[in-house]
C-alpha cells in the first residue's frame, strides 16, 4: 500500500468524477499539443519549401498569391510575364541564381512545371530512376507525383490545360517520363517537372493563329531568385517593383505574414485548450476539497495507524499529481493521434503530410505545466488535511 496505490484507490472510488477530470485535462492538453504539432509542422514545411529563395519575381498582384503559386504551387499564378521583361533582372548584378518557372498545365491535378535542372538541384533532388530531361516534352516526376500517376519510365501522357482537373487536354503533345525523383520532403515531390521549352512548345502549338504574334514572345510565370549578397534584400525588390511592370515578393516576409494570420486562429484555440485545462485543475481542487470532507475519518484513522501529518499531505498531493499525469498522458495520446489522423485524412498529394510521430521540446513544457497545476490544485486540500485536528474528528465521531 504505497502512496500511489492508496491515491489510485481513492480515484477509483469516485470513477465518474475521475473520468470527467481526466477527460477535461486530456482535452485541454491534447488541444494544445495538437496545435503545437500542426503549427510547427506547417511552419516547418513552409520554410523548407522556401528555403534558399530570397525573392520571387512574377506578374503584379497579391505578393502572397505569388509566393503561394510559385513556391508552394498552392494557388493560381498572378499572371504571366514576358521573358524579355524578366531577363534583365535574372542577369542582374546581385542575383546569384535565377530559376524560371512556366506554369499552365496539369495532369490529374498535378502541376506540370516548366523550369531548369537547377530547380531540382536547389532541393537536392536525387534520381530514383532515369535522368533529367534533355529535350522538350521529356518530364521528370516527383516521388509523390510518380506514385499518384502510376507511370513508369518511357511511358507518355498528355497534359490538361489549366492547373485544376477538368481542363482541355493537349492531345497533340505527349510528354514522356524520363526520370523519377526520390522523395525530398518538399513540394518537388508533388510536381511534374520539365523544361521551360516544353510548356512553350505545347502552348505555341496549341494557340490560335490570331494570337500567333503574341505567342512568339516567350512567357514565364515566375522567377525564383537567390541573391549574391544579403544586402540586395533591401533594395532589389524595391527596384523591381518601381522600375518594371513586374512584382518582387520576398518569401520570408510573406510566410511570416501567412503564419501570423494562421497563428491568430491557432493561438485562440490554444487559449481554449489552456482554459479547458485550468477548469480541469480547478475541478480537481474542488473534488479533493469535497473528498476531504468525506474522508476526514479516513485521515484521522490513518493518523491513528501511524501516518504523519506529512504523509497525509503527500497523499493528497499525490492524488492531484496522479490525475494530472494520467490526464496529460491522455492529452499526449489525443494530440499525437489527432495529428496522425489529420495527416491520414488529408492524404492527397497537395496537402501537407502531418504526422503525430514527432516530439517537440515545447511538449515537455506542457507536461511540466500540467503536473505543476495538478500539484497546485491539490495544494489547498493537502494543506487543510495537514492542519486537521484529528483528535477532534475522532471525538466527534
Amino acid at each position, binding site marked *: *500500500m*504505497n502512496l500511489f*496505490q*492508496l491515491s489510485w*484507490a*481513492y480515484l*477509483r*472510488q469516485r470513477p465518474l468524477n475521475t473520468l470527467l477530470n481526466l477527460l477535461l485535462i486530456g482535452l485541454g492538453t491534447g488541444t494544445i499539443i495538437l496545435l503545437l504539432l500542426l503549427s510547427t509542422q506547417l511552419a516547418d514545411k513552409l520554410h523548407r519549401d522556401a528555403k534558399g529563395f530570397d525573392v520571387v519575381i512574377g506578374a503584379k498582384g497579391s505578393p502572397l498569391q505569388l509566393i503561394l503559386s510559385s513556391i508552394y504551387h498552392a494557388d493560381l499564378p498572378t499572371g504571366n510575364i514576358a521573358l524579355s521583361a524578366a531577363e534583365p533582372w535574372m542577369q542582374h548584378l546581385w542575383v546569384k541564381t535565377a530559376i524560371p518557372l512556366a506554369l499552365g498545365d496539369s495532369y490529374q491535378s498535378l502541376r506540370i512545371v516548366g523550369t531548369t535542372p537547377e530547380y531540382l538541384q536547389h532541393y537536392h533532388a536525387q534520381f530514383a530512376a532515369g535522368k533529367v530531361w534533355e529535350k522538350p516534352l521529356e518530364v521528370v516526376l516527383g516521388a509523390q507525383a510518380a506514385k499518384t500517376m502510376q507511370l513508369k519510365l518511357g511511358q507518355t501522357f498528355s497534359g490538361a490545360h489549366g492547373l485544376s482537373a477538368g481542363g482541355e487536354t493537349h492531345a497533340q503533345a505527349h510528354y514522356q517520363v524520363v526520370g523519377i525523383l526520390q522523395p525530398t520532403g518538399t513540394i518537388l515531390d508533388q510536381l511534374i517537372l520539365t523544361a521551360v521549352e516544353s510548356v512553350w512548345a505545347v502552348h505555341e502549338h496549341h494557340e490560335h493563329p490570331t494570337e500567333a504574334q503574341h505567342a512568339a514572345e516567350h512567357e514565364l510565370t515566375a522567377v525564383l531568385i537567390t541573391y549574391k549578397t544579403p544586402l540586395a534584400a533591401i533594395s532589389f525588390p524595391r527596384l523591381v517593383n518601381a522600375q518594371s511592370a513586374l512584382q518582387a515578393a520576398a518569401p520570408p516576409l510573406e510566410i511570416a505574414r501567412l503564419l501570423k494570420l494562421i497563428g491568430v486562429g491557432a493561438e485562440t484555440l490554444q487559449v481554449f485548450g489552456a482554459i479547458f485545462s485550468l477548469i480541469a485543475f480547478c475541478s480537481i481542487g474542488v473534488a479533493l476539497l469535497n473528498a476531504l470532507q468525506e474522508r476526514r*475519518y*479516513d485521515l*484521522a*484513522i*490513518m*493518523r*491513528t*495507524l*501511524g*501516518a*504523519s*501529518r*506529512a*504523509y497525509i499531505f503527500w497523499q493528497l498531493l499525490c492524488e492531484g499529481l496522479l490525475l494530472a499525469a494520467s490526464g496529460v498522458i491522455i492529452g499526449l495520446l489525443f494530440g499525437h493521434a489527432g495529428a496522425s489522423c489529420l495527416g491520414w485524412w488529408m492524404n492527397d498529394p497537395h496537402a501537407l503530410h502531418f504526422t503525430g510521430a514527432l516530439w517537440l521540446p515545447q511538449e515537455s513544457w506542457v507536461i511540466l505545466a500540467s503536473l505543476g497545476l495538478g500539484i497546485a490544485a491539490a495544494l489547498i486540500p493537502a494543506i487543510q488535511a495537514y492542519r486537521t485536528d*484529528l*483528535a477532534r474528528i*475522532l*471525538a466527534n*465521531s
Partner: protein
Amino acid sequence: MNTIGCFEKNDRPAKLALRSCYSITRILGNLMFVIDQLHFAYLANTVLEIPHWQMAQGERCLIVGASGSGKTTLLHLLAGLLTPQQGTLIVLGQDLAKLTPSAQDRFRGQKIGVVFQRLHLVAALNVLENLLLAQTLAQLPRDKARAIEVLTALNLQDFAEHYPAQLSQGQAQRVALARAIINRPQLILADEPSANLDDTNCSQMLDLLQQHAAQASLVIATHDQRVKNYFQGTRLLELSR
C-alpha cells in the same frame, strides 16, 4: 469549572512519586504506562485530571464513566493523539511528549492498536488492503502472510477482497479488530467497541478482543453494561464529572 475526579478501584498499593521519565524507565521497565498529575483541559470548560494511574504490561483495564466524562480523551492521550497540558504520561517507558510529532506517529503505529467506536475502515480499500495500509502507515515491512493469518484467525479469510460497504456490521467490527492487532501492538485501546453491536456480535467481539489481546495490555473505554459484565473483576478506572 467542572473538574473530573478519578477513583481507582481494585487499586494496587504501588504509588510512586515519579518525577522523571528516566527513573521510570529504570525502575518500572515492566509498566505499560504511568500517568502522574495529568491535566488536560478540553471543550472550553471541561478538565480531565488524573493524579496517578499506572498499568503493568499484559494487564487489562476498563475505563468507565458517563458519556462526556473524558474516557475517549484519555484514550487519545494514551495513544499520543493528544498531548497532556500538564503532568507526565509515559507509555512503554517512553515520554510521548518528548518525541517529535513524526516519532510519536511511528510509535503509535507500531506499539498501539486502536479500535474505535465507529469502525472507520477506509472505504476505498478492500479488507486486505486496509490491513496492508496499517502495516505501511506504521512503517513496517509489507507482510501479506501476516495479514492473511490475522484474517484467518478472525474467520475473515473469505472476505479479503471485499470492500467495507459489502460487510455486515459484525464482519466490519472484526476487520477493525484485525487492523488493530495486525502490527502486534503492545497496547490495545478500544473505544466503546460494543456500540452499534447486537448482543451476539457484542459477546463475539469481546471474546475476540480478550483472545487476541492475550499478549498485549488492553484498555477498554465503555459505558456499556454488557462489557462491564463480561470483564467482571477486571480493574476499573472510573471517571466522573
